[in-house]
């Protein structure tokens, strides 16, 4: 045993012998409920889920299911294209919303709406609007061009595109606001100094805004990717995974298997998202602990 270990063992025996102080009693008393809740509602369900997904056969079946392969692909498109696109738009828009004008203030209130309203009615109403026969969009197209509009949600790529657009529409306000707060933290003097130094708008973004915002931006990007993996509404309410189960993402696919009474496949689907989730969580934690 080295010195430190001896010292710690020594301390430990001392600690046992000593009576607990009132602070320590309170500390433990206040901590116990959290630990219990954590065990009951976090550790237990996760462990149970893994236990349900323990059958190796389930993974073989899963990987042989073309719907699963397609869902993995869709999920990657959703995360890599959708989320990046969303964050870039949010970054752009945040530059607009930092301006101090009264009408911009009011506009930003309107802009929050998609995020603030509940998903189910709004996404369903979008779905109805895109209905090929009686939806608002195609009726308009017919009235204007006398031709039938595209069969929006019956085309797998269009369907997925719309699901991504719905996702962006829904969560863009939130991320824009987060990035606005990041921009507001940058001193106006810096922009003025840069303007005097000869920087135009793009150079001001490149040399002032981006260096100050990049940490926040990338943290938001990772966080949004993690959350988007669990975004079930945008796909499920819009396309329901169709047509022909070609627009599923992992989150909706898990539900699909559940409804087919394939609990082990469902759990295996969730577990198979781990190779995507864990690195994201890892980078996230690493950034946050810096």
């Amino acid at each position, binding site marked *: 045993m080295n010195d430190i270990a001896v010292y710690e063992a020594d301390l430990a025996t001392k600690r046992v012998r000593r009576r607990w102080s009132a602070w320590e009693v309170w500390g433990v008393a206040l901590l116990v409920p959290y630990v219990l809740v954590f065990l009951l509602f976090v550790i237990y369900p996760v462990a149970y889920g893994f236990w349900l997904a323990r059958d190796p056969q389930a993974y073989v079946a899963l990987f042989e299911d073309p719907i699963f392969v397609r869902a993995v692909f869709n999920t990657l498109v959703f995360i890599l294209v959708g989320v990046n696109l969303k964050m870039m738009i949010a970054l752009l828009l945040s530059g607009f919303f930092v301006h101090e004008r009264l009408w911009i203030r009011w506009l930003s209130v309107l802009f929050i709406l998609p995020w603030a309203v509940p998903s189910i009615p709004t996404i369903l109403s979008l779905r109805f609007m895109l209905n090929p026969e009686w939806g608002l969009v195609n009726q308009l197209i017919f009235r204007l061009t006398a031709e039938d509009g595209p069969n929006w949600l019956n085309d797998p790529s269009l369907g997925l595109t719309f699901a991504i657009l719905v996702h962006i529409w829904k969560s863009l306000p939130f991320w824009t606001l987060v990035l606005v707060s990041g921009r507001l933290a940058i001193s106006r003097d810096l922009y003025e*100094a840069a303007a005097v130094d000869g*920087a135009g708008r793009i150079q001001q973004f490149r040399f002032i805004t981006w260096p100050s915002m990049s940490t926040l931006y990338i943290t938001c990007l990772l966080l949004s990717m993690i959350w988007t993996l669990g975004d079930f509404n945008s796909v499920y309410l819009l396309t329901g995974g169709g047509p022909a189960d070609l627009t599923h993402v992992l989150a909706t696919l898990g539900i699909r298997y559940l409804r087919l009474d394939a609990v082990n496949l469902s759990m295996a689907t969730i577990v198979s998202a781990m190779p995507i989730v864990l690195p994201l969580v890892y980078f996230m934690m690493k950034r946050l602990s810096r």
Partner: protein
Amino acid sequence: MAEVEIREVRKSFGRLEVLHGVSIGIQDGEFVILVGPSGCGKSTLLRMVAGLEDITRGEIRIGTRVVNDMPPKERDIAMVFQNYALYPHMTVAENMAFSMRLRRARQAEIDTRVKRAAEILGLSALLDRHPRELSGGQRQRVAMGRAIVRDPQVFLFDEPLSNLDAKLRVAMRAEIKELHQRLGTTTIYVTHDQVEAMTMADRIVVMRDGVVEQMGAPLELYDQPDNIFVAGFIGSPAMNLLAGQVEADGFRTEGGLKLPIERVPAGWIGRRALYGVRPEHIELRDDGVPVEVLVVEPTGSETLIMVRNGAAQLGCLFRSRILPQPGETIRIAPNPALVHLFDAETERRLVH
């Protein structure tokens, strides 16, 4: 280098007008200081010269060009901000090189210019540091370095020393003045500190509430203040101002104190006026007026004594080391040749 012409400039924020027609002509190579109490519009005027605020009315010319509608980067000016505004993600060298980099200067030229500026300002050892690793004084120097590297037509300073402690402020004051003598670049410098203005400026512009109260060389303002605002603002400790009326043989204060005037201004006998005398222009004299000592503040080289006669209070500054007790009576007399008289109504100087 260039001259700067500010002509009848006005500025409104919304409906509120903060500059009410300011005209200042600045010669090539001149060091002009805008001074005045906080909120009088000094920064606004400076920022209009820089192009950071637009010009509501009037005209600003730098060299031969009217710059009213010109963005800051085309005006060929450099500005030092009150809180320095150093780019936090760039090193000292990068901060200083930034403007040249934007203008796509050759790397070799950037390096020589940055190196020379760093030498002038004693920053050579700090070139690789980031602003957060520097002290206040060092940051201030980097901000100046950034301006020097540009080699602009005009330097603009907005209270560059107000975030420094007193000792550093005095040192930097001398340094900026020396820098100006060395580079000879036209400079407009804003401060609320009249001592800074007096010690550094070729010419001072005293402002109040969006108008210019007086312009002139530091000692001109000290010797011939146009009005009681300038009289009270320039000089430290501040000039004593006593209300009363002009009489045939001197000035009688409201408290009945009789004070000497060198020459009674024509037509002013019996009229109400203000009697101004600087603390350093009061002498101890046996035939002076008796006053009661209130407070004695010896600084070693001189002694500031606050005295009272009736309701009238006066500050007196003596070169000699005299230490009367509070409550004691001393006899003082203003030097009549250095007394100022102001119209009590218009608050303007009486020519006499």
